[in-house]
Structure formats: structure tokens, C-alpha cells
């Protein structure tokens, strides 16, 4: 059966690419520390020696639109073009071409639908920065095949937080039952407190540092019980009007398992939002050191 080689949950900050590649007076003062943290985080994926990446993210009104909006969608295509004109325009993100793993896509769709998730699918999906930011931070070679899993954290009505957790738990179980010898890393990105298009946007910190502190603690300790007790579709508007992206972290906590502490945790308090990085090694519960074993 396949191995879940790593479970990785991260914020996705579209300004990282520009900040990390800027030089001279264009380079922001926080760039060096940010790059150092990302390079350390990248090692946690490299050490897991993955063959394929299941990438959980959310389309930001690029290909998916309100005339036909899926709640959960899995891409099934041999390739995925990536990034859009307005992401080049605002963030300077490069266009990419990523390979797909159609066999794993087909398997997750079939078994996921049979498990009670009425998954949408796409045979021609252009993925956006929710997928490419973690490629840029964690696997800049962009050399591994991917399976994109899109969630709706953006357009009400959205699924309940518990449903994200259930889908994460199902993804973990399905991969572990996949008749393959591949090593699969599951990587998902979301947000802590975040405000976009509101009065609290682009402040010196994220809009709700107290929520961020609690959220990092929930994720790092795998405390799904507390997270689900405190978070609802209504409550997530309070920390910031784009905070429903936290539900992708909940999905990843479902992949990692209830009560399972992360083997690697880091964060960075930036303007606008707090960055946070987490890695679990299910195949090597001893943690990072264990993952280095052959």
C-alpha cells in the first residue's frame, strides 16, 4: 500500500516569491528571515522523499465561478498549467506547468465518491497560487506529479468546518489503502486570521493575533476537539473576513489525525498576516529525525 510520507500544512503568502527574489533596495527587511524559515520548512518535505504530492488549496475566483461552484473538487488531468494574469500582475508570480498523477486522481475520486463525498472533478484545471505558493516554497523544482484538491473557502454557502476535517480523514485513509508503492505527501495551504477588502487589511500584524495564537496551538497539538468547538462558519468572520481559509488547515488536521502533534512547527509574524508552517510524519512517528531513516 502507499505510504503517507508527510503531511504538511502551511499558510500561502503570494508575496513570498517577490520578497524572496527581490534584491537591493527592493528587498524588504523581513525577507532574509522569511527565506531562512522557508528553507528550513522545505527540508521537512525533502526528507520525506515523496513521489507524488496531493495538494489541497482553493481557487480564488480564477477558473471556478459562481455560475457553477463546486464545494470539493479533485483535478484529474495529465498536466496543470498554473497561475493567472492577475496573479502575475499583483504578485509577480511566474507561470508554471505541473505534471499530474491521473491514476491517483482517479482512485481518490472513485473511492471518495463511494465514501460519501460527492466530489466534483476537472479534466482541465488551471491551478492558482493556493497550489503554486507551496510548490514555490516547498518544492521549487516543481518536478513531482500532483493531485489538486480544491475546497470552497471563498463563496458562501460553504461546507461546515467538520466536513473539511472528515474529508481530510478520508484522504488519509484512502491514500493508505491505495495499492501502490508510492510515497505520497499531502500538502494543504490555508490562512490564519486574514482580512481582504475590509478595514483591518494590511495592518502591521494579522487582524486577530489572539485567534492566530490559538490556531497555531490547535494545529501544532492536533487539537481538533478545541478547534471544532470554537470555530463555526459564522464565527470565522470575526477574526477577519477571509479567515474561512482556516478550514483548509482543519482539513489538514484531519489528514494528520486527531490528537497527533506536528513534528515540525514554525511561524513568522508578518505585516498583514501570520505565517505558519507544520509538518507531520505519519510513517515515522519518531519525528523529523525518524523520517531521515531509510
Amino acid at each position: 500500500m502507499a505510504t503517507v510520507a508527510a503531511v504538511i500544512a502551511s499558510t500561502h503568502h503570494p508575496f513570498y516569491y517577490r520578497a524572496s527574489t527581490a534584491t537591493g533596495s527592493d528587498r524588504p527587511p523581513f525577507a532574509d528571515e522569511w527565506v531562512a524559515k522557508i528553507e528550513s520548512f522545505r527540508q521537512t518535505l525533502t526528507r520525506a522523499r515523496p513521489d507524488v504530492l496531493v495538494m489541497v488549496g482553493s481557487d480564488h475566483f480564477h477558473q471556478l465561478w459562481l455560475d457553477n461552484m463546486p464545494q470539493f473538487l479533485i483535478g484529474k488531468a495529465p498536466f496543470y498549467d498554473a497561475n493567472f494574469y492577475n496573479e502575475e500582475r499583483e504578485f509577480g508570480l511566474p507561470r508554471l506547468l505541473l505534471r499530474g498523477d491521473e491514476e491517483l486522481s482517479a482512485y481518490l475520486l472513485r473511492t471518495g465518491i463511494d465514501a460519501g463525498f460527492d466530489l466534483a472533478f476537472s479534466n482541465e484545471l488551471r491551478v492558482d497560487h493556493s497550489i503554486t505558493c507551496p510548490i514555490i516554497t516547498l518544492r521549487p523544482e516543481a518536478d513531482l506529479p500532483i493531485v489538486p484538491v480544491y475546497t470552497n473557502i471563498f463563496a458562501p454557502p460553504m461546507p461546515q468546518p467538520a466536513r473539511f476535517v472528515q474529508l481530510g480523514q478520508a484522504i488519509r485513509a484512502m491514500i493508505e489503502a491505495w495499492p501502490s508503492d508510492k510515497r505520497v505527501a499531502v500538502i494543504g495551504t490555508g490562512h490564519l486570521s486574514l482580512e481582504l477588502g475590509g478595514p483591518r487589511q494590511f495592518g502591521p500584524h494579522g487582524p486577530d493575533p489572539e485567534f492566530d495564537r490559538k490556531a497555531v496551538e490547535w494545529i501544532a497539538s492536533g487539537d481538533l476537539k478545541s478547534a471544532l468547538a470554537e470555530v463555526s462558519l459564522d464565527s470565522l468572520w470575526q477574526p477577519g473576513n477571509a479567515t474561512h481559509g482556516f478550514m483548509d488547515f482543519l482539513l489538514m488536521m484531519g489528514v494528520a489525525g486527531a490528537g497527533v502533534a506536528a513534528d515540525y512547527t514554525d511561524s513568522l509574524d508578518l505585516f498583514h498576516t501570520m505565517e505558519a508552517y507544520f509538518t507531520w510524519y505519519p510513517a515515522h512517528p519518531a519525528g523529523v529525525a525518524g523520517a531521515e531513516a531509510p
Partner: protein
Amino acid sequence: MSKYLIDKFLYTIDRDPDLVERYRADPAGTVTWWEAERAGLILNCPAPERSTWLNFTDAERQALTTHDYVALLEFGAHNFLVLTLFIALFERDYEEPLAFQREFAGRLSHWTLPYPDIAT
């Protein structure tokens, strides 16, 4: 009120570099043209299968025509669509990085929770 149609305007302008420039230079002409020619187009259907019932209210048309993003947000336009397009339209007019984004936030400083409902 037609939140969906405002969002559709923002979405279809934002994804087209020529339309971004046209909306910046000639907002009234762009809104008039778009409502007549583009509002009814279903994005995954041929033009003859267009919707026949979509129109802006006078207040929505006025807000779009005057680039009044505060009003659009208060009608319940999607915050991400408004922010992204208006950064494309006006960030270039500000010297300091993020100055436009911070002015945008300041113009919403009278808001209290809950914010306008963006559900469509």
C-alpha cells in the same frame, strides 16, 4: 439588488488586462457597454444562450461608474473581487508600497462586525 451581477462585472473585468485599462480610463462607457453586451453571457455557454434577466439597479450602476468601492462592498460585493480589481486600477497612482491598500482600509474604518453579507 444584484450582488451576483456586480461580482460578475468585477470578475470579468479583472481577468482581462484590456478591460482593466478600459474600466480605469472610461468607467461610465465600460459599465454601459458591459451591461448591454456582457452581463448576460454565461461564461461556459455560447452567446445565443445568454441570460435575459440580469440588470444592475441604478445605485449599483452609479457605484460602478464612479469607482465607488466602498458602496460596492456595502451592497455585498465580494471583498476579494473588489480588492483585487481596485488594486489593479489604482495602486499605480501611489508612491509608497501598500499605500492604496491602507487608504482602502481607512475608508472602511466606520465598519463594525458583521460586515455586509457577501452570500450570492
